[in-house]
């Protein structure tokens, strides 16, 4: 269903062959009614996706403890439906990079990301995952930001961030999924 929409978008970008109104054989026209149905369905799917973000249990260092605190009773991310933490990447929707990614870990992170089923999202939690943080200068082994390895949707600063800050990041991610925009669209919309 999403594929279909993509095709129709692409087709509308191609100028009709031979100029004028003559339609290319097999070309799919965007019909107003169909578009509405599709976009409504997209909204419903985006609603479902945003409300059922299952995280991967992936914690490398200190931020993992705050991630556990978010899972804990006081902050409780199950209120949003995030509590189904999956240990296998195949079933997870969002990978929360909680901690430092070092050079030896980077291929593993890439592989985990590749193993996840689409759609997948990434949150970079804490200074280390965003930019290397305290290990930005003076070290030889730390990746200077997880976004050198995999694309990141939401960055949450802090060392480690408060549990509320991680919840805020998850809400931000929900907003992003509901809007249906890609990373590039958000970036260009801002400029």
């Amino acid at each position: 269903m999403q594929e279909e929409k993509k095709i129709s978008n692409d087709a509308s970008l191609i100028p009709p062959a031979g100029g004028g109104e003559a339609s290319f054989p097999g070309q799919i026209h965007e019909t107003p009614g169909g578009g509405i149905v599709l976009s409504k369905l997209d909204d419903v799917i985006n609603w479902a996706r945003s409300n059922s973000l299952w995280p991967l249990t992936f914690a490398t260092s200190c931020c993992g403890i705050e991630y556990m605190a978010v899972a804990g009773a006081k902050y409780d991310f199950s209120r949003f439906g995030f509590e189904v933490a999956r240990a296998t990447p195949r079933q997870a929707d969002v990978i929360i990079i909680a901690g430092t990614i070092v050079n030896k870990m980077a291929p593993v992170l890439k592989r985990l990301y590749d193993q996840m089923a689409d759609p997948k999202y990434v949150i970079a939690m804490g200074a280390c995952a965003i930019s290397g943080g305290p290990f930005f200068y003076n070290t030889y082994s730390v990746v200077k930001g997880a976004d050198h390895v995999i694309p990141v949707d939401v960055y949450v600063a802090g060392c480690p961030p408060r549990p509320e800050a991680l919840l805020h990041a998850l809400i931000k991610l929900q907003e992003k999924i509901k809007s249906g925009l890609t990373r590039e669209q958000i970036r260009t919309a801002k400029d």
Partner: protein
Amino acid sequence: MFIIKYIKEVYRGVKSLLVGMKRTLYYFTHHKEIITQEYPDNRDTLVMAERFKGEVVMPHNEKNEHRCTGCQACELACPNGTIKVIFKNELTPEGKKKKAIDKLVYHLELCTMCNLCVEACPSDAIKMAQTFEHSVYDRSELTKILNNPGSKIMDGVE
């Protein structure tokens, strides 16, 4: 005897399981024990501890003046190069050139909230704010300029 030992074993095991089940049933039925704070709903009432280190800010007064002299003590104290001070030359009313800060660049994405810059600042120009909602879609938004545009140093701060 074997059979008595066997029965005792079963009894002891079942009892220990029942004790645990009683405890969980207690929590299942006593909802006043729930300690969950509902974060996005309690934003208005959520008060951070006054010493909580959320990010470094530079307070300005109502005349858009700050207290930073540009001594670079914070930049030197910072263990991981979070703060950069960029200078400009300003003309004083007497027509003299004076060195002042142009921008105090603060990399929130590098900051580890260690408080060493605030401790090092001789003129109390920077402090820790209690904000924590720092999540963004784009990493470049985390690089901040602490002084407001067009701000000046407060009179009397050397």
